[in-house]
C-alpha cells in the first residue's frame, strides 16, 4: 500500500462479485479496487448495475457469488456513509437528523454538537438547523444528507446519483460539498448520469455495461480514449 497513510477499511476490493435478481445477472463477475483517497466514478447506462454495485461495495447487499473485502477484512467497517439519490430524512429537525446519525455511531454530547454544527455550516444550512428536515427543498434535503454523512467523518463516502433530481445550481452546490469532503481525506465512490460532472470530479472511472466492468481506468484517459466499445458508444451518445 506504499506510503499512503493506513486507513482501516481500505482498499475496498471486489473479486468476482455477481448478483442475481429475478434471474437477471445485475452484476456479473465484477473485479474492482477502490484505492484510498480516490474519487471513483461509476458510469454506465440505466440498468447497468451502478446502484447495486455501490450497495455491494457499501455492504448493504451481499453478493450471490464472489466477495468484497474492506482493508483485507470481510466484515464491513463502521466508518462508511452513503447518500442516496432521494435523501431519506427523518421527521426531525435538520440538526436532529445529524444528531440521530451520530448517536447511532455512538457520538454524543459536546462532540456530537460540535460535529453537527460544523457539518451544517459546511453545507450552508446552519441558518435552518432547527427547521423540520422533510419540508426543506430538494436541494436543501440533499445537502442535509451530505452534512449527515460528513458528520460521521467516514473513510469512504458512497453517493448514488446525488444530483439526479436537482437543478443545476443545487447540483453545483452538491459537487462543491463532495469536493470539500474529499479534500478532508474521504474516499469518494459516486455514480452519475452527467459526464460533465464526472469529468470535473473523477480521478478514476469504472464503466459498467450489463453488470460487467468494461473499463476501470484513469479518468483523463477514459474521457480521451475509452477502450471498450460500450464506453465509446456511451460517450458519443452524450455528445450527439
Amino acid at each position, binding site marked *: 500500500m506504499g506510503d499512503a497513510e493506513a486507513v482501516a477499511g481500505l482498499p475496498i476490493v471486489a473479486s468476482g462479485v455477481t448478483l442475481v435478481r429475478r434471474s437477471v445477472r445485475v452484476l456479473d463477475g465484477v473485479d474492482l479496487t477502490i484505492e484510498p483517497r480516490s474519487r471513483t466514478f461509476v458510469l454506465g447506462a440505466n440498468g447497468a448495475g451502478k446502484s447495486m454495485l455501490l*450497495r455491494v461495495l457499501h455492504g*448493504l447487499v451481499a453478493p450471490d457469488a464472489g466477495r468484497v473485502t474492506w482493508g483485507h477484512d470481510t466484515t*464491513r467497517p463502521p466508518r462508511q456513509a452513503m447518500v*442516496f439519490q432521494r435523501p431519506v430524512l*427523518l*421527521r*426531525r429537525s435538520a440538526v436532529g437528523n445529524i444528531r440521530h446519525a451520530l448517536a447511532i455511531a455512538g457520538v454524543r454530547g459536546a462532540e456530537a454538537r460540535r460535529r453537527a454544527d460544523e457539518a451544517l455550516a459546511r453545507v450552508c444550512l446552519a441558518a435552518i438547523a432547527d427547521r*423540520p428536515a*422533510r419540508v426543506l427543498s430538494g436541494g436543501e434535503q440533499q445537502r442535509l444528507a451530505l452534512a449527515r454523512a460528513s458528520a460521521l467523518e467516514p473513510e469512504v463516502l458512497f453517493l448514488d446519483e446525488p444530483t439526479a433530481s436537482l437543478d443545476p445550481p443545487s447540483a453545483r452546490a452538491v459537487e462543491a460539498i463532495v469536493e470539500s469532503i474529499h479534500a478532508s481525506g474521504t474516499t469518494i465512490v459516486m455514480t452519475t448520469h452527467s459526464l460533465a460532472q464526472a469529468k470535473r470530479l473523477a480521478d478514476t472511472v469504472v464503466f459498467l455495461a450489463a453488470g460487467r466492468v468494461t473499463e476501470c481506468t484513469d479518468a483523463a484517459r477514459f474521457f480521451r480514449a475509452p477502450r471498450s466499445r460500450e464506453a465509446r458508444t456511451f460517450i458519443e451518445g452524450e455528445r450527439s
Partner: protein
Amino acid sequence: MDTLSQSFALALQMVTHLDPRLTQIVALSIAVSLASTFCSALIGLPLGAAVAIARFPGRAPLIVALNAAMGLPPVVVGLLVYLLLSRAGPLGRFGLLFTPTAMVIAQTILIVPIIAALTRQTVEDAWGEYREQLRSLDASWMQSTLTLLWDTRWSLLTVLLAGFGRAASEVGAVIIVGGNIDGVTRVMTTAIALETSKGDLALALGLGIVLLTLVMALNVGAHLTRQWARARFG
C-alpha cells in the same frame, strides 16, 4: 315522541349540570379505557414494530391472525376472561372478577390486536422507506425500531385513539367481567344497556350523548393532529 323529547331535555340538563351519577360513570369509563389503552400500547406498539421489521417463519400467518383478531367478538373475550378470573379459574385466587382491573384486562385483550396490527402496517410502510438508510448508518435492530416508532409517532397517536375508542364504546366484555355494579364497575356502555332496560331513558340518553361526543372529539382530534404534523414535519 313525547317521551323522547322529554328524555332528551332531561339528558341535556344532566350533561350541562354535571349530574354526579353521570360524571362518576363517565370518569370510570375514561379511567378504565385509558388504562387499557396504556397497557395495550405497551404490548401492541413493540409487537407491531417487531412484526413489521423482523423476518421469521410464520410471519405471514401471524399478520393474518393479528388482522383477524381486530374483530374479536367482545362477549367471547368477556367469557374467556370471566373463566380465567372466576373463583374456580386459574387466576381466581386474585379475586379480580367484578373489579375495574378485570375490565382493563378484557379491554386490553380486545385492543392489543388493533394497536399491533395498525402499528405493523404503519411501521412497515416507514421501514420500506428507511431500511437502506438505517442499514447504511449501521443501526442495530433496537435503534431501527425506536427510530421508526418515533418517526411515525403522529400516525401511531391515531392508532392509539382508535384503540381507546374501541375500548370506551365496547359493552359485551366489560358487562360480563365487570358485572355493572353501581359505583364500582358501571361504565357508560353498561349503564346505557341497564338504564334502557329499566326505562330511565334520560340517564341512558345523557350517557349516550357523552359517549358520542367523546368518540367524535377523539376522531376530530386525531384528524387535526395528523394534518398539523404533516404540515409541520412532512
